[in-house]
C-alpha cells in the first residue's frame, strides 16, 4: 500500500514537473512592415502560438498566415493569394534554441535565438536577437528581425515590385503563461 502510494506520488510529481517546465503563449503578436516610396504596408497577427521548454531552452512558434490583418482588403488578398499562397502554405513555423538562456535570472536579458524559420514551403536558418523579460516566472519575449522576400521564393510581379520592399521588418512579442493541461 505504501509502495503503491509512493509510486503514485512519484508519477504525479513527474507530471507536474514536466508541465511546469513549459510556458505557452496563445496570443503572441507578430507584425511586419514593408516600406517603399510607393506605399507602406503593415500587417498584424495577434493569435500566434508559441511554447518554450524552459529546461531545454527550446522554442517553437506556429502562426496562420491568413490571420494577418491589413489596413486594406486588397493588400490582404494579394498577400494570401499571390505572394504567400496561404491555401497551399497555411502556416509559418519557427523551431529554435535560446542560446545561454538563464531561466532563473529575473529581469531583462538579451539572448540570441537560433533556429529554422519555415514559410511558403521554404526553411531557412536564422538568428534573432531577443529581449527576454522574466517577472517571477512570467516570461515575455520581444524583438525585431529583417527577412528577405527572395529567400522564401515569394514572387512579386514586376508591375508591383515598387510597392513591396525587398527586406521586410518583422516585429514579435510573446507573453507566456505556465502550461496547464
Amino acid at each position, binding site marked *: 500500500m505504501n509502495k503503491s502510494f509512493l509510486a503514485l506520488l512519484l508519477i504525479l510529481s513527474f507530471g507536474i514537473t514536466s508541465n511546469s517546465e513549459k510556458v505557452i503563449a*496563445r*496570443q503572441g*503578436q507578430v507584425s511586419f512592415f514593408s516600406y517603399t516610396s510607393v506605399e507602406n504596408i503593415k500587417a498584424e497577427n*495577434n*493569435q500566434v*502560438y508559441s511554447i518554450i521548454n524552459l529546461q531545454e531552452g527550446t522554442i517553437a512558434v*506556429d*502562426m*496562420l498566415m*491568413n*490571420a494577418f*490583418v*491589413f*489596413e*486594406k*482588403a486588397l*493588400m*490582404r488578398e494579394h498577400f494570401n493569394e499571390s505572394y504567400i499562397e*496561404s*491555401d497551399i502554405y*497555411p*502556416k509559418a513555423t519557427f523551431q529554435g534554441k535560446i542560446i545561454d538562456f538563464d531561466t532563473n535570472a529575473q529581469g531583462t536579458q538579451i539572448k540570441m535565438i537560433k533556429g529554422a524559420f519555415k514559410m511558403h514551403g521554404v526553411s531557412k536558418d536564422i538568428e534573432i536577437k531577443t529581449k527576454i523579460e522574466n517577472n517571477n516566472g512570467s516570461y515575455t519575449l520581444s524583438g525585431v528581425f529583417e527577412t528577405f522576400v527572395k529567400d522564401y521564393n515569394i514572387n512579386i510581379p514586376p508591375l508591383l515590385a515598387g510597392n513591396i520592399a525587398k527586406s521586410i521588418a518583422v516585429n514579435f*512579442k510573446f*507573453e507566456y503563461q505556465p*502550461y*496547464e*493541461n
Partner: protein
Amino acid sequence: MQRSLNTYQLSFTPKQIIALIVIFVFLGLNSCSENSDKIVRESLDVEQFNVDQIIEGDFTFDEDNLIENVVLVEGVIQDINNLNNRSTIILKGKKDTDRLVICDMQKNQKLTTNSLNLGDEISVKGILKGTLNDVILLNCIIPQPKTNE
C-alpha cells in the same frame, strides 16, 4: 449665370454618372469595413458548432470547407483579455483538453464583452481562420437573442 449653371448640369454624361455611383458604392463599402477582413453580421445564417466539435474539425481551404467563412461557436468563457489592445474571448469545451477557441472581437463588441463573466456559456460568431493548437476566429460578434417584438 443661369446659362453657365445649365451648361454645368449638362456636363455629366451617363457614363460619368455610372462611374460616380461606382465610386460612391466602393467608398461606402470600404468605410464599413473594420479591417481587411469582412464584417461579420448578426443576421447571417451560418454553420454552428460547439467548442469540442470545432477543435476536432479538419479544416482546409477546399471549396466545400469552412476556412475564411463565418461560423457560430458555442462554449464556456475561460478567459477575457485585452492583450495587444485586442479584445479577446477564449472559449473552452466540455472535454478535458488544452485546446481552446480564440475569438478576436470586433471593436463594436466592447460593451457586450464587458458585460460577460468567466464561466458564462455563450455563442460567438466569427471568421474561421484555421487551427494551430487552438481554433482561431477573427472579427467576432456575440449575437443578441432575437425578440418577437
